[in-house]
């Protein structure tokens, strides 16, 4: 999920950088040297995983996975996502320098919020944990879509309809992200529970 260069207005660009800078600052501060390699390699994994197309009816969609990033990395999700987005810009011209702040915020802020909202429930058993995992994947994309829509709307009020369309096309993706997060967290719980918060 990203906004192309040239769409955002000056104030929105500035706000995006402000939030991203604070989040990345906190993330880097919390990132001790024991975890630099881990964060870098997981960031690479998310970059790669987001290249996967999953079928959605007759069409297909990229995975976003910011719910899982939040659960695995906490605040370090900010620098990890910033780095992954910069790489996406270099490799595929998805976004660029001016949108880096907003795009990082759009993806990473929900990731961190979801970490705080849902991580405590993952330790519970059975249905509660499963519901939390689904909700985490779903909510992260939902919040991202809202932020993306907001960034468009506050850039130019004429974007209202475009923003609405952008948000509503993400509804099936929210469900799929919820399912993928649910199964993926289940997998990690079985195989390497120490990765989860």
């Amino acid at each position, binding site marked *: 999920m990203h906004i192309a260069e040239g769409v955002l207005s000056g104030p929105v660009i500035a706000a995006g950088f402000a939030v991203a800078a604070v989040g990345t600052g906190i993330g880097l501060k919390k990132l001790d040297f024991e975890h630099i390699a881990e964060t870098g390699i997981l960031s690479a994994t998310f970059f790669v995983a987001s290249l996967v197309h999953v079928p959605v009816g007759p069409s297909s969609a990229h995975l976003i996975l910011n719910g899982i990033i939040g659960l695995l990395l906490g605040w370090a999700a900010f620098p990890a996502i910033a780095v992954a987005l910069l790489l996406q810009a270099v490799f595929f011209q998805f976004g660029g320098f001016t949108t880096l702040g907003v795009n990082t915020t759009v993806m990473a802020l929900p990731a961190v919020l979801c970490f705080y909202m849902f991580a405590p429930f993952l330790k519970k058993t059975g249905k509660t944990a499963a519901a939390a995992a689904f909700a985490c994947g779903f909510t992260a994309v939902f919040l991202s879509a809202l932020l993306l829509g907001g960034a468009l709307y506050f850039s130019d009020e004429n974007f209202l309809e475009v923003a609405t369309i952008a948000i509503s096309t993400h509804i099936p993706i929210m469900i799929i992200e919820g399912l993928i997060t649910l199964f993926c967290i289940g*997998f990690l719980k*079985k*195989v*390497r529970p120490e990765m989860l918060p």
Partner: protein
Amino acid sequence: MPSDCRQHPSTILSLEDLSFHYPEGPPILDELNFSLRERDHIGIAAPNGSGKSTMFHLIVGLLRPTAGRIVFNGKTVTEEADFKILRRQVGLLFQNADDQLFFPTVIEDVAFGPLNLGKNKSEALEISYQVLERLNLSDFAKRITFKLSGGEKRLVALATVLAMEPKVLLLDEPTAGLDHKTKHKLVEMLNNFTELSYLVVSHEFDFLTETTAHIYTMENGKILVDEELYIHHHEHAHRSGKQPHRHI
């Protein structure tokens, strides 16, 4: 496509003038010819980068040849739909078992293939348990794939392939990283597969001589079906540093 090239009565698979190069790369396979008949057990020993894994991927349609054709059961295989049918009967064991196992438990992983073939859950489970038993792996069903040792992973990967009930096995360096005991287990298993055809790629001549009837090599993108060349190749390896065993 009409059945047009059944030269040998029992040929299952044949590669005819098969050529391949990666995009903007040099030729890897160059008008390669080869055929595998029923119950053939064939070994291939060739240096790193000579195109063995590439050939296997071409056979099962994960890569498409730039020229030439693949004939399976007398039919030329060209479309993805044809390859889907082929893949039900030709099982490929990847060079790295880790690439092949991606479910948390062994049984889930083994049942994945049969489920994709349209079996229902209980049928898939039944087949999977049978295969595990055949490979002496019954105790592994509930184990976590990720925590198996290298040798155990190889054996489970083989189980996932066998669960598809293939007629032909393609084994890409099945012994890499295995210790002697596990290797021995694998030799015994292969010697029991009398009803299958298989093609084994390995750097280990001892293993090949114990499991296959013929050993070929690859050079310049071709398979050399010439026993003499095999010996020559091995001598060359000696000159460049590997001494024959001296002990005893």
